[in-house]
């Protein structure tokens, strides 16, 4: 669905490259978690996919076409929910009436349902809503567009704790077969339960691109009390109660994915995945 080949990109000639000969393929369907430290190029990658930035070299293709062309037939199949957004001072109903005709599969029913889930009314004026409510409003619109690709940049920023669980519920319900959602975030706990596939970036390079099922089949994430042996661990992170451990899943145990721990482990040991998949 998205094919990125030999991508090089820098903000201005003198600045260091954000991406250099970067390659990534995103298949259709499922929720991708795009993770990485601040400044590693998560938002830049989303902008490149949406055609909002032009690659210096290489190509970014969506449905077989270069996204930099910003053709309407591509744009009506993708929606980018940016971290910084501007909304006009109109009611939610009018906002939808003005923007929905650009998206052929826009679902008014889903939009109304999402607004209800987020405790918003169609008559609410966007100028009078709080930052969090505005975010919920634009998330509702983004989901209702029913585009094949939905890009979300830090979607849970500005949401309070109950709203974050509301967000997860609404997103999970709105996902249909063949629809792809790419969520870029550094707040990994907010999306941990949602994502099907993890894409981790560090310094403009791809650290990991694996499905959650694959990761959990090969790695175990455990919390061990202080003093317990950690000889079998690939990575150890001290915690309040002892140690958080990442180890090979040799015994086929099913442990929940701990993205924060995995991220820390991969940053410290970039060869961790190779070690986990090595046949002894």
């Amino acid at each position: 669905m998205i094919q990125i080949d030999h991508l090089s990109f820098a903000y201005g000639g003198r600045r260091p490259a954000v991406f250099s000969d970067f390659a990534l393929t995103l298949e259709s369907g499922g929720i991708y978690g795009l993770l990485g430290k601040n400044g590693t190029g998560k938002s830049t990658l989303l902008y490149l996919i949406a055609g909002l930035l032009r690659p210096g070299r290489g190509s970014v293709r969506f449905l077989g076409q270069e996204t930099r062309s910003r053709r309407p037939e591509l744009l009506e199949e993708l929606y980018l929910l940016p971290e910084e957004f501007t909304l006009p001072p109109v009611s939610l109903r009018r906002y939808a009436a003005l923007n929905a005709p650009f998206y052929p599969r826009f679902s008014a029913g889903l939009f109304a349902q999402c607004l209800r889930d987020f405790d918003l009314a169609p008559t609410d004026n966007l100028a009078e809503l709080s930052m969090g409510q505005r975010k919920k409003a634009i998330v509702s619109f983004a989901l209702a567009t029913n585009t094949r690709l939905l890009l979300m940049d830090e979607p849970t920023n500005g949401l309070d704790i109950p709203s974050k669980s509301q967000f997860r519920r609404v997103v999970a319900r709105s996902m249909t077969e063949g629809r792809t959602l790419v969520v870029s975030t550094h707040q990994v706990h907010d999306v941990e339960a949602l994502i099907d596939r993890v894409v981790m970036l560090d310094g403009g390079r791809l650290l990991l691109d694996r499905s959650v099922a694959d990761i959990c089949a090969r790695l175990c994430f455990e919390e061990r009390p202080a003093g317990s042996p950690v000889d079998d661990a690939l990575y150890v992170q001290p915690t309040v109660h002892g140690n958080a451990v990442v180890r090979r899943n040799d015994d086929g145990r099913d442990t929940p994915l701990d993205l924060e721990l995995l991220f820390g482990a991969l940053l410290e040991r970039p060869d961790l995945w190779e070690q986990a998949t090595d046949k002894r």
Partner: protein
Amino acid sequence: MKCFHLRRFGLVLRLDLLSGWKRNLRYVASLYAGCLAIEFANFYGPSRNGLSEHYLRLGERACPGQPDAALAAAERGLLADNAPAFVAFLGFVLTLAASAAFENLRTKGGRTAYLTLPATNTEKYLSRLLWATVGAVIAFWIAFVAADVTRMALFPILGHGYGSTVPYVFHELTHFFSPDGYLNFHMPDATEYLLGVAFLAELLLLFHAVYLLCGTLLRRHPYLLTTLGLIALGALTVVLIDLYAQRLERIPAFDPITLLAVIDGVLFAAIVACYALSYRSFCRIQVVRHKWRRR
């Protein structure tokens, strides 16, 4: 790929107009205030103190021995003489609107929303251009008529209720180009007259194109910076002409028609270049960087 789809263009036009309707209303209100200020500045004195000797004398000369007709002629003279102030204001409004045509792209959020809108670059560009030109002219006339009506309703209290200025502004705008207008008076030859009309029209379009181009390129204070740039360019031209006056005298004189034709050609090329650059710049805008001044 179709570059232009009429229905989609209509949707973009509607989005551009209605998503900022409150702001658009504020613009019309500002234009109304501007027109009203000009009305007060020009007509308050004559309404309060009566027409000056100058106008009364002109009226008397136009209609000798007919006091009522002479007064009406004097009032018409006052209205006609003040029409250029409104024409100048219209010019200011049009260049300001051209400068602000792409103000929706000044924030990162605005750029993201507009650039990812499922429409072609041509449709988006034309929509903004249309509102910045035709929209600005419509807004000006609405505001102007409203201010004129306000003045006509209020000023009888002060003593005089002059007629509408609107027809005199129309006259002022069209008379210059009309076959019996000022231009034709100075250019009796038909070819020279047509080239002269083309020159003036191109000069106006060039100003519009330059302000539009700078509005696309500059993110902050585009109107102020463009105006300062044009003033600097004008001053530089005067200085250069002054410096090289003697060399210029050595250039063999063209006949006026050839000279006008050459100038028209140069202006036309400059207009096309400005609009083309503005469009190209719009098509290549990125969400971050590209602009000369980042935000």
